[in-house]
C-alpha cells in the first residue's frame, strides 16, 4: 500500500450532550455507520470495487472512504459503468476526483457491450440505463469482484426500502426479494461463493436531505449541473426534457422531435444519470445552502421528478434489480 497525501478535509465532530453521556448527531451517526460498513467490506471481501459515477451519492461515499481508510489507500478500485450518454461535466468531474484521490479508476462502457453483442438495443435512441446491468455483470466477471459498493438509498424507491445493507446476488446477478439474508444488529454477512456477489450500500439509511447536508457540511465539490444553470429543454410527456446535449465524443444527443418548442430554462439536476432518462427540475438554487432549502421545500420526490425510467411501471426498479441492476 502507498500512502496518499493528506487531503484537505477536516471534520468537526458534532456532539449533542444528553443525560450523562454524549451521543452523535444524526450526520455523525450516519457517517460512522457508513464507515463501519465500508470497513466491513474491506475486512470480509477479498476483491471489492466501489461503483463511482461522479454523482452526489457516490461522491459522499468517496469522502466516507477517505475517512475510513486514510492515511492508507482505499482497499478497492473505483469503477464506473459508462452508458456513453453521460454529461461531460460529470465525466470530467469523475476523472478529476479520481485523480485528486490518487485512486485507480476502471471504466467499462455499455458501448463495448453493444460492440460485443451482449447488449442489443431495440432502437438507436433507446435508453441505455437498464443495459448497464449487462456491462456491470461482465465487468464483475472480468475482474472477479466479489462485492460492489454502491450509493443506493432506501428512501429512493419502494423496491429499495427492503434492500439489505449487504445484499446477496446469485451467479446471474439476480436479487431475490423473497430470499434475502436476515440482517441483524450491525453484524453483516458478506460471505459469497465464487461467482456470486454482494452489493454493499453504506448510505442505505440516508435520505436525499442527509446527502445534501453532508455535502454542505463536508464542503464536497460537485459537478456543475447539480447547480442552477441555463439549458435548452422541451416539454415532453408532461416533463422537462433536456435537448441537444453534447457528449464527450462530440456527438449531440436528445434531438428535439418535430413540433417540439425549445425553451431556454433555468434548471438543475437532482440526480445525475443517463442523459436519455434523467430530467432536470426548474430551479434557481445556485449554492449548497439554497439546494438544502429547496430539498426541504420541494413537493416532488427525487425520482418522481427526475427519473423517466422509473415511471414506466409501478415496479420498474424492482424489475431492474432482479435483473442485476445495482
Amino acid at each position: 500500500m502507498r500512502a496518499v497525501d493528506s487531503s484537505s478535509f477536516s471534520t468537526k465532530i458534532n456532539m449533542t450532550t444528553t443525560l450523562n453521556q454524549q451521543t452523535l448527531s444524526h450526520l455523525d451517526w450516519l457517517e460512522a455507520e457508513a464507515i463501519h460498513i465500508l470497513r466491513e467490506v474491506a475486512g470480509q471481501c477479498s476483491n471489492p470495487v466501489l461503483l463511482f459515477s461522479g454523482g452526489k451519492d457516490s461522491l459522499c461515499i468517496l469522502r466516507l472512504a477517505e475517512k475510513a481508510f486514510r492515511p492508507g489507500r482505499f482497499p478497492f478500485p473505483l469503477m464506473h459503468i459508462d452508458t456513453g450518454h453521460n454529461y461531460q461535466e460529470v465525466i470530467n468531474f469523475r476523472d478529476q476526483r479520481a485523480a485528486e484521490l490518487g485512486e485507480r479508476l476502471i471504466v467499462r462502457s455499455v458501448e463495448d457491450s453493444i460492440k460485443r453483442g451482449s447488449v442489443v438495443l431495440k432502437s438507436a435512441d433507446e435508453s441505455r440505463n437498464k443495459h448497464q446491468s449487462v456491462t456491470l455483470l461482465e465487468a464483475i466477471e472480468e475482474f472477479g469482484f466479489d462485492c460492489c459498493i454502491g450509493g443506493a438509498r432506501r428512501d429512493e424507491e419502494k423496491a429499495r426500502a427492503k434492500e439489505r445493507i449487504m445484499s446477496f446476488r446469485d451467479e446471474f446477478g439476480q436479487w431475490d426479494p423473497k430470499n434475502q439474508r436476515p440482517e441483524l444488529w450491525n453484524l453483516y454477512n458478506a460471505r459469497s461463493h465464487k461467482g456470486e456477489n454482494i452489493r454493499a450500500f453504506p448510505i442505505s439509511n440516508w435520505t436525499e436531505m442527509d446527502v445534501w447536508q453532508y455535502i454542505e457540511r463536508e464542503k464536497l465539490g460537485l459537478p456543475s449541473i447539480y447547480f442552477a444553470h441555463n439549458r435548452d429543454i422541451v416539454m415532453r410527456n408532461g416533463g422537462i426534457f433536456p435537448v441537444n446535449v453534447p457528449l464527450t465524443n462530440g456527438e449531440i444527443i436528445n434531438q428535439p422531435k418535430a413540433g417540439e418548442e425549445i425553451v431556454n430554462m433555468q434548471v438543475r439536476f437532482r440526480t445525475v444519470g443517463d442523459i436519455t432518462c434523467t430530467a432536470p427540475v426548474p430551479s434557481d438554487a445556485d449554492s449548497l445552502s439554497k439546494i438544502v432549502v429547496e430539498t426541504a421545500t420541494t413537493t416532488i420526490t427525487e425520482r418522481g421528478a427526475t427519473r423517466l425510467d422509473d415511471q414506466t411501471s409501478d415496479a420498474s426498479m424492482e424489475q431492474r434489480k432482479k435483473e442485476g441492476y445495482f
Partner: protein
Amino acid sequence: MSKLENLPAHTDSLLRFLTCGSVDDGKSTLIGRLLYDTKTILADTLTQIERTSQKRGMESVDLSLLTDGLQAEREQGITIDVAYRYFSTGTRKYIIADAPGHEQYTRNMVTAASTANLAIILIDARKGVLTQTRRHSYLAQLVGIPHIVVAINKMDLVDYSQAEFERIRVTYLEFAEQIGLQRDGRDISFVPMSALNGDMIVDRGSALSWYQGPTILELLESTPPAHSERTEPFRFPVQFVCRPHASDNPELHDFRGFMGRVESGQIAVGDEVTALPSGLNSRVKAIQLGNTVLGHAITEQSITLLLEDEIDISRGDMIVKTALAPAPVKQLNAMVCWLSETPLSSARTYIIRHTTRESKAKVGSIAYKIDVNTRAQLPAEGSLGMNDIASISFKLAQPLMVDPYDVNRATGAFIIIDEATNNTVGAGMVQA
C-alpha cells in the same frame, strides 16, 4: 408545522424505532400518519395514493398505501420483509423498522428489533390485549428494547372511551408485571389514539381531551438516544488494520492504525488498553478519523486507534480498557432465534459471527424452548425450526470476547451462519 420549520439541523439527533402490529391494527396507517403529518410525504406520492384510494372506492386517502410493498408482495397479498422508512422533525431524524405482521413474524420482528431503541406496540381498542400483543412485548424484551410505547388505536371505534383505555392499560400492566417487562429500567407509556383521524399521533385532535399525556411524536422526540442511559464498558472490535508503509513519508512509515467502531463506552488518548484475546497491554497514543485527530471518542463513533506499543493485533481482535476487560470464552449459553427454513442440526458445525470475529461452533445442548406467546419454557424436543426461540449452549473453536446481552447489546449479540450456503440462519443473545 411547515416544511421549513422542519429543516433538519446538522446537529439533530437520531432515533431508531420499531412498529409492531398487523395491518388490521392500523400499523400502516400510523406510519403513514407520521410521515404525512411531519410533511415527509411529497405531492407526487400523495397523488399516487389518492388515485389508488379512489380506484379502490375509498372516500378518503388511505395512508396505509404509503407502506405498500413490492410487486412480489402485492401478487401474493403478503408482506415479505422488514421495510425501513425515514422522517425528520427538525430536532431528530427517525429510522422506522416496519416489521410485517403475518408470516415469519418472529424472525422479522427480531430482525427489526435488533437495531431499535423504542418499540411502538399497537393494540386495537376494540380487541384489547391479544396473544400477539404478548408476543410483541416479549420479543421487544428479549431483544432488549429499553422503551415501550403501547399505542391503543382505533379509539374512534370505542367512542373515545377513557374507561376502555384504562381497562386495556390495567390488563397490559398486569401482564407486564408477570414477565418483568419493567425490569432493567425499561419504561412503558400508553397513548390512546386514532391513526385514521390523526388523533394523538402528531396532532392532539379534539376527541381525546381527557388524555393529558404526550402524543406519539412527543414520546419519540423525548426518548433518550441509544447508549445514553447507562455506563457501558469500552469495547472496540478491530475491523481493519491500516499499514500504509509509506516510503515517501517517514511519519507514516511505522503507522499502524486499528480501525473500527466504538461499540460501547468511551476512549481517550492516554487510556490503558488491552488487546484480546492476546491479553497484551498498551496505551492509546492517538485517535483519528481519516486525517483528523480526535482527543477522545464515544459510542458508535468510527475511528482509528494508534497505540504506544507495537503489539500484534488483527481483524477480529478486540481492544478494551484494561480495567474492564471481558474474559474470552470458548463456550457460551445464548437465547437463539432460528431464522432459516432448514432446521438447526446438532450434527453440523456452524460459524458464529460475533462483532468482527468468527468462530466455528457446535451445538452443545438445547436447554429449553420458549413459547413466544406465553413465555413459558418448553422441553427441548426435536430440533429448532424457523421462528423457534431456545436457550442453547455452544462449543467454540476460537475464543470470543462476549458480554451478557442484557448488559451490552453490541457485544452480547451474534449471528449464526451456515457454512454451506453462507446464509444467516440464526440470531443469538448471550446469557449471563
